[in-house]
């Protein structure tokens, strides 16, 4: 794999064109020698070509006869099952470019259904969408968080053998990571690393995965990913990947590993100062975590002081800002924030984003300067940042925790005015804060407001409101919400049961407690813990109702058995029904067959009869008249009885009649 290592290292200080240093920067490259430089393109290209050749994919041949195939050269046996190489950018021309533009327009109109559908329909037409077009639609779906649609389109397109590019993979991985399924993402990532994979992971791929793994606390896998990155050398050691993993360790409280990661990165990048500011926030957090305040602040002074060459983007700034804010350095944080605002010069330089405001809000709130927090939050619009539900939630959370319910409610109203839709979490925060200041009715009001807003609270949300009600001894209302859960098709979890059970035991309403316990026992998805059992037993004993416990178990057993019996019965009935149906069908089919046979018999007889008649014509005039009569009288009764055989009789008669007619 001598192939693509210099990629990112090349991205770094290229403009300086310190080629020699660059080479040193990436360890995965064999030590550079002057001779190496004489024909480097050949080297790098060769590996890539070898990779392509291994796939036995021929470059798309031009139209027309290929005149120069060396006579002796064997026709390359192309393997139809080999992974396809993605199309190059030059295919985006002509009709396919028109289609691309059309789909981009649809994406702008946010008509993603149509965009996805048109892409699908175009696959089977004379104008196949390019992989770029497919990527555009996938990106738009990802942007609108329509993950299911994204996956189904991705599957469709892949099955239609549109070869994916690394961008396609990145979108797919990002989708899985957004859904907090880093394992699924990793599985797809492994496909990229396979030996015959025509595309290689890009630094972005590693970043997406590292971030998701770190956020989900899968630090071992994150380290594995990083080691894989170094070992394969497909991309140079990436500062962002390191930064994300360091963040993961800091969150897990492991400052040592974070610091050692920093050391490792520094070494991999050649020992000089790291010029990408993204690592320093987490590095400072690591120092703070270990109580090395001085080192942290030294680092801060160094990278953000005068003459520092470290580049900071908004995200990197936010990390440092967060490190300061979380560790009681509000003054420094404020200074840094001012500096960021000074540097902020959209569209050219973006030094402040939504995250910066969130971090500042946190910092103020930590210092209990809530009014300042609200003020800075309000300044967001000045910097062309629009708060989203998450940042509102953050501030409401802080305010609610500190019993500033009025302000929190004000923010909630502001959300509606600004067209930011509150989510379940917003409501839950409001409910919590109302309970905190004993405004129980308002809390219940907010809870009900959730349904009006078309949101679907889950079991945890129910638990919050029930817990609040229980605390103020409004057990019946809590029970009401519990009953509402089934109504709203929300499955109660063990916490919901235990909450109520405890409350009933405490209030000495043992019958209700037993009812809840029964509910737990009957619910297959929850376990009746020993603790609860002991609690209930103790309470029952106190009241001298020892027997009730056994009775409870008996009841449960009985009910379970009953339920099982009922289920079995249901099943048997369903089976019987199915059987019946089948038999009926069989019988019908049989009857039909018979009817057909009879009809043909009748037809034969009719023909025979006619023959006979022709023979007997003169002699048996009277007889035939009689028959006709019979036919008539018969047909009168038959319509009613409708029995099969008689029907056939009738048919026969009729056919006889018909054959007689002419």
């Amino acid at each position: 794999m001598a192939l693509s290592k210099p990629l990112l290292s090349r991205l770094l200080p290229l403009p300086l064109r310190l080629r020699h240093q660059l080479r040193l920067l990436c360890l995965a490259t064999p030590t550079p020698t002057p001779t190496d430089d004489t024909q480097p393109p050949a080297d790098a290209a060769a590996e890539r070509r070898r990779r392509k050749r291994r796939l036995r994919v021929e470059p798309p041949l031009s139209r027309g006869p290929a005149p120069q195939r060396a006579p002796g050269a064997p026709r390359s046996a192309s393997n139809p099952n080999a992974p396809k190489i993605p199309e190059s950018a030059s295919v985006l021309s002509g009709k396919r470019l028109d289609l691309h533009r059309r789909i981009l327009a649809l994406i702008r109109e946010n008509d993603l259904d149509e965009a996805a559908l048109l892409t699908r329909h175009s696959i089977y037409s004379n104008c196949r969408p390019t992989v770029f077009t497919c990527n555009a639609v996938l990106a738009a779906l990802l942007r609108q968080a329509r993950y299911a649609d994204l996956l189904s389109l991705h599957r469709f397109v892949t099955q239609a053998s549109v070869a994916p590019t690394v961008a396609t993979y990145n979108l797919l991985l990002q989708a899985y990571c957004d859904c907090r399924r880093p394992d699924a993402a990793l599985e797809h990532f492994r496909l990229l690393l396979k030996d015959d994979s025509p595309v290689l992971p890009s630094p972005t791929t590693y970043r997406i995965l590292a971030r998701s793994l770190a956020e989900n606390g899968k630090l071992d896998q994150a380290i594995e990913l990083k080691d894989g990155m170094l070992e394969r050398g497909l991309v140079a050691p990436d500062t962002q990947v390191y930064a994300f993993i360091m963040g993961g360790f800091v969150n897990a409280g492991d400052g040592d590993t974070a610091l050692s990661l920093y050391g490792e990165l520094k070494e991999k990048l050649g020992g000089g100062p790291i010029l990408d500011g993204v690592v320093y926030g987490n590095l400072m957090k690591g120092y703070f975590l270990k109580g090395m305040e001085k080192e942290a602040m030294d680092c801060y002074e160094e990278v953000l002081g005068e003459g520092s060459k470290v580049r900071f983007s908004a995200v990197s700034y936010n990390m440092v800002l967060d490190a300061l804010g979380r560790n009681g350095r509000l003054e420094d944080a404020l200074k840094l924030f001012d500096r960021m605002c000074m540097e902020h010069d959209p569209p050219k330089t973006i030094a402040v984003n939504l995250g910066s405001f969130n971090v500042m809000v946190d910092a103020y709130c930590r210092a209990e300067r809530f009014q300042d927090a609200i003020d800075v939050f309000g300044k967001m619009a000045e910097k062309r940042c629009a708060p989203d539900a998450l940042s509102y939630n953050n501030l409401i959370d802080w305010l609610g925790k500190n019993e500033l319910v009025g302000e929190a409610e004000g923010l909630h109203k502001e959300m509606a005015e600004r067209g930011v839709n509150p989510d379940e979490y917003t409501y839950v925060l409001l409910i919590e804060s109302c309970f905190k200041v004993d405004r129980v009715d308002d809390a219940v009001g907010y809870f009900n407001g959730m349904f009006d807003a078309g949101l679907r609270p889950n079991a945890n949300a129910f638990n919050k409101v029930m817990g609040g009600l229980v605390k103020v001894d409004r057990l019946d209302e809590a029970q009401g919400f519990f009953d509402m859960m089934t109504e709203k098709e929300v499955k109660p979890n063990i916490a919901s049961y235990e909450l109520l059970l405890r409350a009933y035991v405490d209030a000495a309403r043992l019958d209700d407690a037993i009812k809840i316990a029964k509910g737990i026992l009957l619910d297959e998805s929850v376990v009746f813990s020993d603790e609860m059992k002991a609690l209930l037993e103790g309470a029952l004993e106190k009241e001298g109702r020892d027997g009730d416990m056994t009775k409870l178990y008996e009841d449960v057993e009985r009910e379970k058995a009953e339920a099982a019996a009922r289920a079995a019965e249901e099943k048997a009935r369903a089976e019987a029904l199915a059987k019946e149906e089948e038999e009926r069908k069989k019988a019908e089919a049989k009857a039909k067959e018979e009817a057909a046979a009879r009809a043909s018999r009748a037809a034969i007889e009719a023909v025979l009869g006619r023959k006979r008649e022709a023979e007997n014509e003169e002699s048996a005039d009277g007889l035939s008249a009689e028959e006709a009569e019979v036919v008539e009288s018969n047909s009168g009764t038959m319509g009613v009885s409708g029995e099969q055989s008689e029907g056939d009789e009738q048919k026969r008669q009729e056919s006889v009649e018909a054959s007689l007619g002419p």
Partner: protein
Amino acid sequence: MAATAAIHLRPLRSFAFSCARSRSLLHLLARPLSSSQASYAYHPYPSPAAAAPNNVHQPHQQQWAPTRNPSPLGPPPQWPPQGHPSPPHPGNYQQQAPPPPPPPRGYGPPPPQQHVPPPPSGGHGPPPPRGHGPPPPHQHVPPPPPRGYGPPPPHHQGPPPPPPPRGYGPPPPQKQAPPPPSRGYGPPPPQDQAPPPPHGYGPPPPQQHSTPPLPPPEPVAGPGELMGLCREGRVKDAVELLAKGARADPPAFYELAAACSNPKLLEELRKVHDFFLRSPFRGDLRVNNKLLEMYAKCAAMPHARRTFDNMPDRNMDSWHIMIDGYSVNGLGDEALRLFELMKECMAPTSHTYVLVLNACANSEAIEEAFLYFDAMSKDHGIEPGVEHYVGIIEVLGKSGHLNEAMEYIEKLPFEPNAMVWESVLNLARMNGDIDLEDRAEELLVSLDPSKENPKKLPTPPPKRRLGINMLDGRNKLAEYRLPPKIEKKVVNEQRYVPDTRYVLHDIDQEAKEQALLYHSERLAIAYGLISTPARTPLRIIKNLRICGDCHNAIKIMSRIVGRELIVRDNKRFHHFKDGKCSCGDYW
């Protein structure tokens, strides 16, 4: 026989003269080049009136036919050893007054014969070049025909001449129709007057004698004419003319090649190339380069490469054209390989590197791009310019590394200018990254307000929480809302299961399934799908009844491809739409 024919012709001919002459005169006077409309006008003009006289001579004409149409590629034009303008008269003449082609009605002497130096086999008395047998007036007539002749093959069979001005009683409207004049062909008024020499059958007026610009024997189409045809976009005609022996000079070849600009004209281009190779100036660099360029445009890089390899000498342009051609045709690797060869012959220039980077972009060769970029200043002392940096950005962007491209831009040694942002804008569009597109556009407009797109639609707000929230741990959302379930959403999945009951042969199961795949309606639908635009209905006609398995398969197909598939079997129509058939599965 020939003689009688000639006699017969006489009266007619004088007619033809009057017309032809007048026209040729006009040409001499008025129109140096581009007589397109004239010859064009002739095409649609098989008027009955004209046909009548023609028919008389039909047999006669046919006699010539064999000699006339030698082979598609035609007699290799005979190149006079010294260079192009060997038969000076025709050449000059024609260059000035190209193709007003009043083909002499059914008039014998077939032009091609005339340019081929060896006279036609004996016996065809009247017109052979050398014969000069026919009466003097005769002589003026020939020159025009060859030209008018060339283009449309049907002409051979008796191209209707412009209706005789009078006497022959062409219906009055036709009189106006005589296409050339009415089509704004040259200065029409004189023409209208010209026909009047209606004393008609008499000896042509004296001036006629003076005008005939050239001896008829070599009415060879010349370069001017070819170029004229090319400019009108009638490449096929031009090539045919060439096949008949028309001569061309380097500019003409240049034009001819340049006219073959789309893949459909590859055959023509090859023919032109063939003729060019047989010409004395096959070494002409400019034409060769043009040929390379056009082969590249026709997506025929193997041809281009062969041409390139056989070129006697190449200049920088040749290399550039080849490298560019490879990368435009998606063969970036080839382009890079060629570049390696090129470095052995000559020193690459700054522009070469732009092309090389472009080639890298088209083969997703990021690593090479960076290596070349370094080599540029190191090995060849070319300081990278903005276009090279943009080249690198494109390499990254086209390979789907948009983020990396943005990082690269941050590290540029100069303030990114409009060119950079425009490139980013296009790359973002290509990859469908709306947010980046907006940002690039904003930056671009701030640098160059003229780029503002007034029709731009507002960007829909994103639903997904972008990576700007740095509040790890604070995002407790998951506690309340489970992550969206994905994957298992596939509701009532439909799948095609081959139903082998409809294969009546005694073969194993797999072979039965295989057999089902080749039912003709499926093949027809498959072909129809890939050869028509999306969402158009398809109509399939089948001579036998459709089988149940195909019926099922087509139902599924109609849903997947979102089209109406109308299949007629020998009993009825089935309209498949959205996975259902109009027959309700009863047929």
